[in-house]
């Protein structure tokens, strides 16, 4: 059964993921080949929460495929302010467009919205829930830099609230990847996510740590996320942990020469700018990869020439 919507990385099999990444690589290699592939296609951007980058990345992707976007605008200026439900909003905008991208502060919003529409809906982040297109560009970057099999990856920072981390970790269970989760005790992975990972992978490839030192030398990839000050009850608690999860040149002395460092951005002080110019830094490439990956996703979901079936094969969730 083919996928009509992209709600969570959990719905994707290894085959689906490879199809998406391969298509993104084709597009990346020759973007002009798809420049008029989706002319007259309109993508609706429904961002109930600001996210300039994700929104611009989708906008760029659609335009590079020859299509265009219509934008709901800010929540303040829309009918949402008047109390319209999300279910109504998506049903109205569906009538204008060929596909929808939804970012919403509530968990499960994309799943619910997808139950009301027939056009493909892509989840661009639902609260603390899922962010599957970010996951696809993360996987694309990992594959380019280190491959996706026989890989040891460290995922570090705020693992509790980081939806990008939850999505990525789940997607990685499709591959031969050992995952090490590094965080302060208070920001560990939610038990629900651990439950899922164990279900998907028998838990064999999952380890949790409080300190990066223990595992840094083994890592092929280190995925860093931001630890937000506001997550901590008091400043002192924050200061206690903050320094331990920052990457500087001295941190990397213990790392392998081929270590790839990633970050979904924006960063604050998790990664010293001195790392930027080294071969370790992949985070700007990672951000740029958002466009070909989203082009691939839109192409696969919008095509009725059989391309869509290539993302199929998996049981829908």
């Amino acid at each position, binding site marked *: 059964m083919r996928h009509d919507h992209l709600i969570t990385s959990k719905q994707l099999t290894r085959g689906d993921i490879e199809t998406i990444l391969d298509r993104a690589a084709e597009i990346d290699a020759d973007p002009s080949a798809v420049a008029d592939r989706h002319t007259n296609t309109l993508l609706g951007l429904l961002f109930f929460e600001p996210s300039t980058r994700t929104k611009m990345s989708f906008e760029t992707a659609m335009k590079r495929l020859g299509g265009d976007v219509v934008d709901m605008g800010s929540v303040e200026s829309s009918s949402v302010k008047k109390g319209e*439900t*999300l*279910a109504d909003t998506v049903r109205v905008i569906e009538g204008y467009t060929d596909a929808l991208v939804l970012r919403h502060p*509530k*968990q*499960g919003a994309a799943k619910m919205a997808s139950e009301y529409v027939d056009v493909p809906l892509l989840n661009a982040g639902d609260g603390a829930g899922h962010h599957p297109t970010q996951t696809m560009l993360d996987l694309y970057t990992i594959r380019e830099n280190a491959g996706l099999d026989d890989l040891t990856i460290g995922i570090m920072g705020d693992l509790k609230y980081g939806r990008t981390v939850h999505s990525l970790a789940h997607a990685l269970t499709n591959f031969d990847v050992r995952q090490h989760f590094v965080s302060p005790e208070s920001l560990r992975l939610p038990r*629900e996510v651990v439950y899922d990972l164990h279900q998907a992978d028998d838990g064999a490839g999952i380890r949790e740590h409080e300190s990066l030192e223990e595992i840094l030398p083994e890592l092929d990839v280190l995925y860093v996320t931001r630890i937000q000050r506001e997550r901590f009850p008091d400043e002192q608690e924050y200061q206690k942990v903050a320094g331990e999860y920052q990457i500087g040149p001295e941190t990397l002395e213990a790392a392998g020469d081929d270590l790839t460092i990633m970050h979904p951005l924006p960063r604050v002080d998790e990664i010293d700018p001195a790392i930027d110019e080294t071969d370790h830094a992949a985070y700007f490439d990672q951000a740029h990869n958002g466009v070909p990956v989203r082009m691939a996703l839109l192409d696969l979901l919008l095509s009725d020439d059989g391309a869509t079936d290539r993302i199929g094969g998996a049981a829908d969730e």
Partner: protein
Amino acid sequence: MSDTHDHHDGDDDHELRVSKIRSGTVIDHVRGGQALNVLAILGIDGSEGEEVSVGMNVPSDRLARKDIVKVEGRELSQDEVDVLSLIAPDATINIVRDYEVIEKHRVEPPEIVAGVLSCPNAGCITTSGEPVSSRFEVLEDGVRCDYCGTIVRDEIAGLIDT
């Protein structure tokens, strides 16, 4: 422990502590302390004049301590039995007519419970005034919101939407 006791009605002595009913449902082998939650699921609070007998923490061969709920004049719907099974997975349902048990069966957890429990996650779309009813997947040891993924293990009775 073997099921043989069931068939011999080995708990009968203890059941006498609560009165026999004429017609209705006896929910037996409810986990000790869950009887009031069973009543909550059935929407029974006594205000409608329902005739109900409750035995709590009665000695039982199978559960050590069990609760029994007897409801006069009412047979349970499948929906009610489904939700009941979440908090009383060992329960037996006895349908009584004219003082005779005419039907006796064990509850079986459903795969999905829809529209009955409300999600405890304040960030969940199902609690946000949208026209969507809740849906939970039933796990071996709890339930999980289909929308936000929240897992509830111990406090399921507290989620009952009444």
